[in-house]
């Protein structure tokens, strides 16, 4: 009897566990829910939040965070979501549920807080001042291949702007490949320098297109400048390899040994066949002579 009870208990437990795992609720403890966001809503933090959001969240939650990504998911800009405390959202991002992966292992705490800040600003942009236009100029160093971005105010004063996040890229076939760090901040002189990495492949002559951007910034509007430099390794295409004679080549690219072998055999065998057919005519002719 006792054993039966144990089995029943285990079964019930297993079933409840099964049911539980299907509709896992996010049980957030009061402790977790009241956790304070250590980051202030500052443009710099927001930029980080936006970058992380674009990289990790957009695919499911959509560009606008409205839950309309490549799959249908939670709307992050409606009231239901936004009324949750920062602590609750933080906990949910860390633990994950169903299709939402647990990001605790993938993102740093500060990064998660900055994403939360970004989500708050998405519904309430008034928290930050309107973005300004800037001027973006480039200079390049040739001795050590490097690129320096100079960010100046757009007005006639052309004041150098401090602490502006500049992104550096190299243009590739299907997108822009980052060089330098995720964030590169200008100094007091409005300049930020990035060393061009080695072993970047350019076009057939080694030309690379450098793209420098100020983007996703809450203080300044997007701006982009490009420069073409002969800094890369020339692109080495192995097209010859795909045009040589090979067994997988097209019909006019059969290997020579195969051509010789096959045609040689065909020639020998068919020479015999043609000879025999010719003999048939000889037999006929020989019969005619006999009649005469």
């Amino acid at each position, binding site marked *: 009897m006792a054993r039966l009870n144990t089995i029943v208990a285990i079964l019930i437990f297993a079933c409840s566990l099964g049911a539980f795992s299907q509709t896992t609720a996010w049980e957030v403890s009061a402790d977790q829910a009241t956790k304070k966001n250590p980051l202030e809503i500052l443009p710099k933090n927001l930029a980080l939040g936006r970058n992380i959001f674009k990289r990790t969240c957009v695919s499911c939650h959509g560009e606008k965070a409205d839950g309309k990504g490549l799959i249908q998911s939670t709307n992050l800009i409606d009231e239901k979501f936004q009324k949750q405390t920062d602590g609750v959202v933080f906990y949910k991002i860390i633990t994950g549920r169903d299709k939402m992966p647990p990001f605790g292992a993938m993102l740093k705490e500060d990064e998660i807080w900055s994403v939360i800040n970004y989500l708050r600003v998405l519904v309430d942009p008034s928290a930050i001042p309107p973005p300004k236009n800037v001027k973006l100029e480039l200079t390049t160093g040739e001795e050590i291949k490097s690129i320096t971005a100079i960010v100046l105010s757009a007005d006639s004063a052309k004041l150098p702007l401090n602490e502006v996040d500049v992104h550096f890229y190299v243009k590739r076939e299907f997108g822009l490949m980052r060089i330098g760090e995720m964030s590169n901040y200008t100094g007091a002189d409005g300049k930020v320098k990035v060393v061009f990495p080695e072993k970047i492949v350019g076009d057939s002559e080694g030309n690379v297109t450098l793209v420098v951007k100020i983007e996703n910034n809450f203080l300044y509007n997007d701006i982009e400048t490009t420069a073409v430099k002969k800094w890369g390794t020339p692109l080495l295409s192995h097209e010859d390899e795909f045009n040589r004679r090979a067994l997988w080549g097209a019909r006019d690219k*059969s290997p020579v040994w195969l051509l010789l072998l*096959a045609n040689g055999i*065909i020639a020998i*065998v068919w020479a015999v066949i043609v000879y*025999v057919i010719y003999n*048939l005519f000889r*037999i*006929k002719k020989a*019969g005619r002579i006999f009649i005469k």
Partner: protein
Amino acid sequence: MTDLYRKEIEIKKEQFQDLVSDLNSPLNRTGSSFKIWIGFLLLLIGIAGFMYVRQLQQGLGTTDMRDIASWGLYIADFVFLIAVSLVGSLITAILKLSNVKWATPLTRISEIIAVAALIAALLIIVVDMGRPDRLWHIFVHGRLQSPIVWDILVVNTYLVISILLLYIPLIPDLALLRKTMGHKPKWQQKMYKILSLGWQGTEEQFRIMNLSLTALMVIIIPVALSIHTVTSWLFASTLRPGWDSTIFGPYFVSGAFMVGAATVIVTMYVIITNYNFKAYITDKHFDLMGKLLVLTSLVYLYFNLNEFMVPAYKMKSGESAHILGLLVGEYSLLFWSVQILGMILPILLLIIKPFRKPKPLMIISVVVVIGAFLKRFLIVTPTLLHPFLPVQNYPESYHHYNPTFSEIMITVGSFAGIMLIISLFIKLFPIIPVYETAHEKGFPNEIINNS
């Protein structure tokens, strides 16, 4: 003395006349049973034709082949027919060049089997094509790197040589037919006349004929070996477990000799029971063909041992699913039936002389032929059903291959076609070489020429 000599000649002449009328007897007797037989064959071919038209309209979806088992009964049939056709070279060329005299009455039987099987093989491979309307692409865009192109080249070459090997020894017989078949319809007489090439049996004509035959017999051996070797390469040139084998060439060739010998035995039996050829195809012929069948089967057994024992010993991943499927899995019943009934048991029985009598030998040969066909099926299908990567996201039916009625009837139609060609040939030409038999029985050429 001259009188005696003349009398002897007269007797010889009469004996020769008897021989000719004996061997030509199938041409003169056409009973209703033959007509029913032809009608039956035509019916089978008709059904196959209907099924093929349906297949043309609806696509190869009328078969049970799908993306996993993408080759099936048609390819098995093709390989089988190519195997059967190999007997032409075995009996005519290999035995003849080795001066084996007893095989002479069997040469034409084996040669017409070869020609008929090749024609059927060429047709069935077109049936297997998804786009038969683009057959000409092979000639316009053919790629020498593809084993299919090699196969097409070599099969057609073999067909031409086989037809020549069938035709050239027939020329003296045709000359005889030209003289003795005066009662036949005009077209038939005309055909004999044209085909006999004005044969008069002169020394020069014999010389040219023998020269040509020797040339053909020498050249047909490598060509025959290569048709089945190249056919085996259609499989062996892929990376698939079960096909990725270096002994596929000799394995196929030895199997072909076995099924070819068995086919000839069955045909011999059908011919002697229908026509009065007991004096020409004797029990001795059956006995010797039985021995030949044992020999070829033993060679085939040896290759089977290699083909299955070696991978089964290693059980390499990839190979193991395939091998286990054959030895103990889905196909084990068929596999062991084919191996035991179609190869091992025939060897054991045919070692015993009484089993080499015509009737038991014929029954054993039928089993060998059926076994050989199923063996080809076992070579083609299980391998395709066990690819390297798991078969997923397909309907359940994709995991199996069970030929549809349409496929089976078209395959049956290919056999009916072979039998039709052979049956009609027997009605139009002497199936046992008249000239060669007379020659070997010691009739001088002048008697043969002047009768």
